[in-house]
């Protein structure tokens, strides 16, 4: 890599200018829709309807946000999203660490077969299981509830895979020493293994949280119109149908901004973990 860098330093500066321009254009194209979303959420209703469009609101107002609060129960929806995302994430962490530890550090008959079967489920689109799962969750008495959204997602193959990759790198000597001291396996996992793979745990936690904050198909299917249990992403769809055809752009943009903020804020502060775990999942396999 370092040689590639030093060789390319000799390139002419016209090429650099072109590259810098291309990079800037890509960044602008990538950031534009979200920037436009935030700007539009601050416009007055008249401004959102104007042709040609107003790019920057003249007098930024939070009127649209107030209106959102009048159409959907923002606090309740955000709370539901928080409960769904954090409880699911906690479950995924526990189940993934335990199973990942077993796959990385124990040998038992059928280990590779079981691992292959579990990993194969990673590539199964959720729609394939949606119909029977909907019925099963209903007959367990969990439909139209937060539990119905959470329980089927408490374990997943990606988490097990990621944890196995990272736990395999924890030295056996550390674990054996703790066993000599008479520590139980669960205690070893908690006290010795978990701290050694903390960055991977952080990555998995963030991934799971954002994924389940954003998840739409399953909650929509389970909840069957029980608005009290709506996460914010489902409440948003009510904004679009509210006042359809009339001035609702600002309203929709304000709602979208509210839903985007939590995952985006998490990402900005912790993006290193996100990127590391994607790279880990791609090249360690």
């Amino acid at each position, binding site marked *: 890599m370092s040689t590639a860098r030093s060789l390319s330093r000799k390139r002419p500066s016209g090429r650099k200018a072109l590259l810098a321009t291309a990079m800037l254009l890509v960044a602008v194209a990538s950031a534009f829709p979200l920037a436009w979303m935030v700007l539009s959420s601050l416009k007055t209703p008249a401004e959102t309807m104007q042709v040609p469009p107003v790019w920057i609101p003249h007098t930024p107002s939070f009127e649209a946000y107030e209106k959102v609060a009048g159409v959907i129960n923002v606090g309740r929806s955000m709370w539901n999203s928080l409960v769904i995302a954090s409880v699911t994430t906690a479950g995924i962490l526990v189940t993934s660490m335990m199973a990942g530890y077993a796959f990385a550090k124990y040998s038992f008959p059928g280990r590779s077969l079981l691992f292959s079967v579990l990993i194969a489920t990673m590539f199964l689109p959720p729609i394939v299981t949606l119909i029977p799962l909907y019925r099963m969750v209903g007959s367990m008495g969990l439909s139209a509830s937060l539990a119905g959204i959470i329980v089927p997602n408490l374990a997943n*193959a990606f988490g097990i895979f990621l944890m196995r990759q990272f736990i395999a790198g924890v030295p056996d000597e550390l674990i054996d020493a703790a066993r000599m001291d008479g520590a139980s396996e669960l205690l070893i996992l908690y006290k010795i293994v978990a701290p050694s793979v903390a960055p991977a745990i952080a990555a998995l936690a963030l991934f799971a949280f954002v994924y389940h904050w954003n998840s739409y198909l399953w909650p929509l299917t389970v909840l069957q119109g029980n608005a009290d249990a709506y996460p914010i992403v489902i409440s948003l769809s009510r904004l679009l149908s509210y006042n359809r055809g009339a001035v609702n752009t600002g309203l929709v943009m304000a709602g979208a901004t509210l839903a985007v903020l939590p995952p985006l804020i998490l990402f900005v502060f912790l993006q290193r973990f996100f*990127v590391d775990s994607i790279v880990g999942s791609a090249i360690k396999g």
Partner: protein
Amino acid sequence: MAKAFRASAGIMLAPAVTLIGVFVLVPMLLTVWLSFQDWSTQTPFSEANFVGLGNFQEIFGATSVGRDFKAALFNTAIYTALSVILILPLSVVLGLMVYQRDVAGGTALRTVLFSTYMVPMIAVALVWSKLYSPSEGPFNQLLGLIGISPQPWLSSPRSALVSIVLLNVWQQVGYFTVLAIAGLTQIPGSLYEAATLDGANRREQFRFITLPLLRRTLLFSAVIAIINAVQVFEPVALITQGGPVGSTNVLTYHIRRVGIERAQGGLGSAMAVMLMLSLIVCVSALFAFVNRKDSE
């Protein structure tokens, strides 16, 4: 000692294996079983009646059920192919932009690109439906600046599916760029050094070193891109409802409509099985293609 570990392995695996077994593997097998049954989603599984290949005959038949399903399968194939064709080359180009060191700002660019992957699809769909708005939407306004006439985007059957592909590419390309960067970091710098000594220019280095050594990464990316593409749901459910004229009726949306909303669980399951089989065929073909290239 070994025996004790076998017991621990059981304890450690029990929660994950039970949950994945009950909520993924059992429903998957049920989907396959239900595809051979006449069954309403509103009734218990015990009410199902075996109909052999009846559901499959119906979804590939000449009635409206068959026409709608075949159209949805076709739309999904187009959507998936377009997504992969756009995402893979873009991810390599953007990956090179982030990875190069001639111009500063690569890491910042990566952050901007990847941030869109964090945005809930529902918000992406809402924002883009307004960006695409034919009259007051900014896209047509920008096109007007460079002298291109306004496009109908989501409102025409000719362009609606492509418009959804574009918003999907915008959201996901950052993720695939990070995958491409991971692949690029695996290529030893000494190869480029040797190639430069042999007089290979940049284009030749890309063609004969970068691209062949990215093959595995691109295979992984292609598989993920395909699996992601068949899951497209929010923009269709929220904005186009499968229209105009069925042009955006894709499988995830269609299967849910048939199997949940219309409660035709048997038919929906047969469609889901066909989706699963199509995926297996596509992914196997991809692997076979790359393996053949590898042995060349």
